[in-house]
Structure formats: C-alpha cells, structure tokens
C-alpha cells in the first residue's frame, strides 16, 4: 500500500499475509478432509495458488462493498471476512453451515459480510453483480460490487452483456477475472479469442488492465484504482490477474491432468503468492511462523465447530423455499 504508512500499514500487511495463509490452509485442509471421504458433503473446487487475487481484491474493499464468487470461491469468501467455522460447517453438511447444508461449497455466502454468494452456474454471478451495482447506484452510498470469475467464464454471454450494462449505466462494478489458464481441462489460449482477457474491456469503453495475479500488492493497487473510479460514478473496470491453480479442477480431476504437466506447475509454484507476499512485506521468518500458528488454531477451531454441529433433519430440506 504505497499511500499508507507506519504502524497501520504494517498491521494491514500482516493481516493480508495472515489471510493468505488462512486461505491456503483452509484449502489444504478441505482437500485433505475431502480425500478422507465421508466428511465433506458434495464436491469442492480449491483455489490454492490464487490467494493473491482474493486478498488483493478484498483488501481494497470496504465491509459494505459486495462480492459475488464462483464454484472456486473459498478464497474470496475468506478474504471478505466470511465466518470460518460456519463455512467449514457448510462443507461438512451441518446445520450450523452458512447455507444450512443446502448449498455446500459451491454456494458459500455470508451476506452479513457483503458476500452475496458463490454461484456455480459459470457466468451467472456477473449479471447479478450488475444488479447489485445498480442497487448501490440507486441508494447513493458509494458501495461497489465485485464479481470474481475465471478465464472460462469470460466466454459466456453473461460476461459480455453485464459489461455492457454496467458501462452504459456507469454502474459501480469491478469485474475481476482470475485467469488461471484453465477452464476444467480447456486451456485459455484455446478457448479465448484474445491473449489478455482485459483487452475485452475496450469493446465496452471501459478500462481494462492485466496484472500479475501472484503479486498481492499489484492486484490490490489495480483494484483500488478501479474501485475509486467506480465510487466516483465513472463506471465499470475489468481487471485480469494471471494466476494458477495448484490442484485439479474438482474432485474428479487430478493435480496433473492430461492437460498440463509438472514442469509448468513448478514454474508457477516458484512464484508462490505467499512467498512473494512475505518478501514484498519484508516479513521475518518468525512473523510468518506467528501467522501460520495463529491460523492453525483458527482452523482447528473451525473443524471442531463443524464436527460438533448436528446434521440437519431430513425435513429441513423443505425450509427456505419461499420467503
């Protein structure tokens, strides 16, 4: 944060680093529990490798700004402040889960924290983000909405229609594309007409930038700029962060599918976002260890909470169908 200073800045950077560790360890824990079988209900899509995106974006937002995420939304959720124990309980299919065990990992939401949900139909969150942006414009409180989406989702009509709507109405929306180079097994260079997805913004008269998605400060700065623009009533921006997912696409996919090899994986891993952040922030090994230890405790508590929460009664399936 170039314009922040002193103690506040060190505290904020420390919190950002800790959040990245929290995401990484949440994902690793979820994956481990998933592989054990019978604990996590439904599939999961883990985002390890993409922590700089989640934290870079959410550190530039206020509590009352909104995010909408995707099937791969654990990181975004955590970065926006989603309650960890209730989130873990949702993965466990327990009553205390954020969605009362109906939505599972792919639909994590914590509206009290400005998190309007993970949305598992690819592209579906962007028109809704435009609508939340519209509500924010109407209520005049200067809030901003951010839809997260992947390179694959940028090929849905929903993306293009939403960009145009936000542009013509100057809605306060920051489109944040995590180009992790794959949509399931399909490489972005095959599926996408342009090398840099950010250039698609030109078609909608909006600014578009590509940033290093392994560098949390680069992400933060680009988002802070776009948020400023949105709050000033100047409309949407598109930010593309080039990043990489460490695990397979989903529960059915191995780490190294037929579509990528270990060499490529290692190249990205060499620029691990946590290592990069530690260096940028000038963290000592002792400080980093302090964050890791604190996170281990939080996670153990979250798992214990999830374990202790009761399973829902079958009839609860009929609750919350209508308001």
């Amino acid at each position, binding site marked *: 944060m170039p314009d922040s200073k002193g103690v506040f800045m060190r505290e904020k950077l420390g919190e950002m680093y800790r959040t990245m560790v929290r995401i990484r360890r949440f994902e690793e824990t979820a994956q481990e529990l998933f592989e054990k079988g019978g604990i996590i*209900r*439904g*599939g999961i899509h883990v985002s390890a490798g993409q922590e700089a995106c989640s934290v870079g974006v959410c550190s530039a937002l206020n509590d009352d700004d909104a995010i909408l995420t995707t099937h791969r939304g654990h990181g975004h959720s955590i970065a926006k402040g989603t309650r960890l124990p209730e989130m873990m309980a949702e993965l466990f*299919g327990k009553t205390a889960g954020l969605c009362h*065990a*109906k*939505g*599972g990992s*792919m*639909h994590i939401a914590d509206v009290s924290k400005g998190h309007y949900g993970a949305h*598992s*139909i*690819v*592209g579906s969150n962007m028109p809704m983000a435009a609508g939340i942006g519209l509500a924010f414009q109407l209520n005049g409180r200067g809030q901003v909405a951010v839809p997260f989406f992947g390179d*694959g*989702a940028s*090929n*849905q*009509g*929903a993306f293009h229609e939403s960009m145009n709507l936000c542009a013509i109405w100057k809605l306060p929306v920051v489109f944040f594309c995590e180009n992790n180079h794959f*949509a*399931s*097994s*399909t490489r972005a260079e*095959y*599926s*996408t007409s342009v090398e840099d997805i950010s250039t698609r913004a030109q078609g909608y008269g909006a600014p578009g930038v590509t940033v290093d998605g392994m560098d949390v400060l680069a992400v933060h700065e680009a988002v802070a700029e776009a948020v400023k623009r949105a709050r000033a009533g100047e409309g949407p921006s598109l930010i593309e962060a080039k990043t990489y997912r460490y695990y397979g*696409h989903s529960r*059915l*996919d*191995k780490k190294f*599918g*037929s*579509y990528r090899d270990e060499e490529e994986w290692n190249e990205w891993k060499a620029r691990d976002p946590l290592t990069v952040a530690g260096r940028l922030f000038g963290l000592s090994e002792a400080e980093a260890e302090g964050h890791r230890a604190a996170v281990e405790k939080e996670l153990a508590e979250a798992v214990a909470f999830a374990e202790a929460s009761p*399973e*829902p*009664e*079958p*009839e*609860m*399936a*009929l609750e919350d*169908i209508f308001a």
Partner: protein
Amino acid sequence: MPNIKFSEAITEALREEMERDEKVFVMGEDVSTPSVSPLTAELADRFGKARVRNTPISELGFTGAAVGAAMAGYRPVLDMRLVDFTLVAIDPIANQAPKLRYMLGGQVSVPLVIRTPQGGGVQNGPTHSQSLESWFMKIPGLKVAVPSDAADAKGLLKTAIRDDNPVIFTEYRSLYPLEGPVPEGDVAVPFGKAAVKREGSDITLIGVGSQVPKCMEAAEALAADGISAEVIDPRTISPLDTEGLAASAGKTGRCVVVEEGHLHGGVGAEIAAALQAVLFGSLKVPIERVAALNAPIPVQPKMEAFVLPSTEKIAAAARIALNYA
C-alpha cells in the same frame, strides 16, 4: 448378447453413427479430455478433434451454432455435461430448434441431438442435480428420449441421431455404471414405443429413466409379499406411447408413475392424465405418483434423499394403491 455398461452403450452408438455418417459430429465442453469426458474422449482419438470438438464455456453460443449447423446439413450431437447447463441455452433449445421448420414453412429441418446427463444422488446441490425432461416434453417440435438401460441407451441414441428433428437425449448419471445385455449389430430402438421390463398382473409401475431400476427393485420387494408388479418404461416421453402404457395399466387396473423430476408439472402428471382419459372405468384405484418433492435438491445427503424418490417410496405408493378401500 454381450453385457456392457450404459455409458459404454452411449459411446458405441456415437462411434457407430459417426462411422456410418460423416455428417455426425460431437461438440461440448472438454469432450476430448479423457478425465472429464470418458464417454467421448476416445472418439476424439478415432475421429479427430474437428469431429469431437471442444467448446469454450458458451452454452448459448455453441447450442445456437449447433442449430445452425443442423439447418445447413450437419448432424451435431451436443454434450451438455449436465442438463442444468441447458438452461443457459434455452433460447435455441426451446425457441429456435423446435420451431424453425414450422415457422419457415417446412424449408429447413434441424437434426440435432442434445445429450443431457442429469439427476441427483451425488450431493451436487440445487443447480447440478436437476431432472428436467418434463420441461422439454411440453415443447412441440422437440422429441425427448429417456433411456433406462444399456440396450435402450444405444438403440435410442441411434434413432435420435438419425431423426431429422431436434431430440433431447436424457442420460441419468446414476445409470452410467449399470451393465446390461446389448444386441450386437445395428439395432435402433424406435421412438414412441414403451417396453415392459418385468411382467406382472397386480399393479403397473411406470418408471421414467433412473426410476426404472428402482421400480424393478420395488417389484422385487413386492414379490416377496406375493404381489405381482409389472414394470413398464415409456422410453420416450415425447412422443409418448399412451397405448402401450394403457395396455399395461388397463390389465392390472392399478398404477404408480415414478420419475426423478419434481412432482409439480411432472412427466407423471401427463401420463396420469393420458391414462385416465383412456382407462376411465377400468382403473380400480386412483393413479399414484412418486417424484421429487417440490424443493430444490439440497447438497446434504439425508436431506437430498428425503427430496428424491426411492425404492421404498415406490413400494409404499404401490401398497397404497393395492390397499385402497
């Protein structure tokens, strides 16, 4: 007859039809990747990636494109991965493909097959577990096949691909691993012909798709109590073989219609209405229905099981019909 899996039957039908007619091609997300699409990936090795074509995540775009290619003389077979994703492409599916021939005064035809894997029971949640055949069956101009075993999967898919009209071809994921005998050679199963899967005399269980094996299990359970249940499968719900279903239900005088989709406005509602119209007087008791409760399909397995139909629910409905005062 060799025993093969339902999933293998699909691949065989695709392979044979692609060999027979070079106009047939497959299109969808990740269709040539073995780990994602085991049913079609081997076809990519055989026929090349131009005929087993990977698409971006653009359901509206590639489904509309398939309608166009069909009008222009090709025979696309789309792999939608899940029926839930067809809803992103509902315009070409519901507004265009089924109406074009009619609206354009018979100048074009749309020989398109849309394969829609579907169904619940795998904790995939509300937007990845639906069974939507009843949505499609009410669109004039669209045919809907709902195979329940390997032989019908192969034979109906061949018919679907050869049909000059758009066809929704439903594949219940729960059926993929089930093995069954499949006749060798080029055997196409006609649309609009129900099949008796088990003969019986006391009650008729009409099962749709994934519920046929469940009806067979329920029939087995009922047999233990000395009840003889017939199981019949419409195989296509548009066209619907009312005559074939009525022959069975008329014979037993008692009938349960079972589907995995939601109860309200379901396939069973159409079948029950059609049957009462022709069987009024010969039915001994009201027609029973078993279907998903009118709730989205939740992730948590106990809640999911509560919403979805089951063998026990089918047997219970049969007992209600059998014990009706």
